């Protein structure tokens, strides 16, 4: 089976720092692939290669066989969604946030927005609430719902629970499992070994910019 992402001798040098060094690894289609490693090992950088928010200084990253630098980055990012370590809501209501993710000429109705909120376990009644008043856990779930509006096939999650309490983290883990069970591929970054054990169908370990797995 063709891998979803394939890295061939990928390196990334930032100034004098070697962030990634000769990485050769694959992420398979389906399930949850957990990317683990200590802080500063290059996990987040590696994840950002997959939606081209970062580009390597050497080597090739492929998505379903195609080199990423030959794909339209805007179209790629709608296929490969991402939630970040710190929930970043935009100015405006929850509805405004969800509508920001719509493609041009696409519309998101009030009712559809409420359905998207319910899909990530949020109360649909907060659809008109100012996004800035949400708790950290709610804000992260809103960011997740916003990403799902793009109809992405792959979800990149960059330590999405690191700033959340245990209950909110559990909700996000459960959602990741639901998405994976429904056919979405999830690539989840964490430095928490217990979380990795709970979530991982596949695992890649990165240390000092090198990958095992």
């Amino acid at each position, binding site marked *: 089976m063709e891998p979803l992402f394939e890295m061939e001798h990928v390196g990334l040098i930032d100034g004098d720092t070697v962030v990634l060094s000769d990485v050769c690894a694959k992420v398979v289609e389906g399930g949850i692939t957990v990317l683990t490693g200590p802080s500063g090992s290059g996990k987040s950088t590696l994840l950002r290669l997959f939606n081209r928010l970062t580009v390597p200084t050497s080597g090739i990253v492929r998505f379903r066989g195609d080199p990423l630098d030959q794909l339209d980055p805007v179209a790629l990012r709608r296929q490969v969604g991402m939630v970040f370590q710190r929930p970043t809501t935009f100015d405006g209501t929850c509805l405004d946030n969800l509508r920001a*993710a719509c*493609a041009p000429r696409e519309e998101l109705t009030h009712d559809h927005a409420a359905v998207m909120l319910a899909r990530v376990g949020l109360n649909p009644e907060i659809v008109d609430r100012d996004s800035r008043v949400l708790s950290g856990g709610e804000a992260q779930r809103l960011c997740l719902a916003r990403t799902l509006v793009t109809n992405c096939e792959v979800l990149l999650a960059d330590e999405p629970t690191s700033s959340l309490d245990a209950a909110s983290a559990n909700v996000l883990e459960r959602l990741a499992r639901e998405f994976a069970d429904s056919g979405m591929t999830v690539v989840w970054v964490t430095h928490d070994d217990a979380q990795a054990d709970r979530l991982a169908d596949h695992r890649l370990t990165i240390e000092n910019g090198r990958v095992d797995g």
Partner: protein
Amino acid sequence: MAELFGLEAAAPSALSLIAALALVGVAVVLSITQRLGLERSILWSALRAGVQLAIIGVALHFVVEPDQSLWLCWLWVAVMVVFAAWTNRQRAPEVPGAFTLGVVAYLASLSVSLGVLFGFGIFPLESRTLIPLSGMVVGNSLASTVLVGRRIVAELHDRRDEVEARLALGMTSSEAAHPFVRSAIRTALIPQIETTKAVGIVFLPGAMVGLILAGADPLTAVKVQIAVMYLILGAVTTTTAVVGLGLTRQLFTPDHRLVRLPDTSTMRESKGDK
């Protein structure tokens, strides 16, 4: 319009100009008594402004001769544009390509403004109109072009997380930067809009005052001032928009990634300390 120029009814003599220096003396005394420490700066700026204007006056006297070639005036305008763009780069070192952006913005603004003014015959295209009007376009746009450039770089740096969250949703770089660029352009334009609103009520602008002091009919002076105010408003808006949109293109890669930006908070603090 021709009769407006060359009026000398209220032109002060050289001796009375020296007397006007007493006003600078007041500023110096205030600085000393209030321990502002600005005496040297006040004296230096007054001296410098006097010398600069004297030089410009002599040069303009030569350039605006009726039979003088317009090419010399266009050369003057070109020097004006280059100097203003260089000032942009000096005042906003964190803005990449500030000089080139400044040149492009001033040229765009001059093309639009002068095209309207001369094209519709609002002013005749002559040496004595070309240089002052170009000076108004460039001079009044300078502060806003610096401001919009610095604001955009600062906003995109400070809110990098939000910009990248937008990019990750599949927005193009211009879509991702739009809220921040719009906010910066609005901030840069509001002072000019407020000035335009207050004109005639809160203050009487320089061109009009100059004409009235030189003996022109106030109604004629007002007509000139209205044209000048519209010119300035249009020019400032054009330059600000050109810098805003042009800079956005420079701050993103062709594959819609935000480039690394300098931390302007330290620059802002150090400039504020001065």
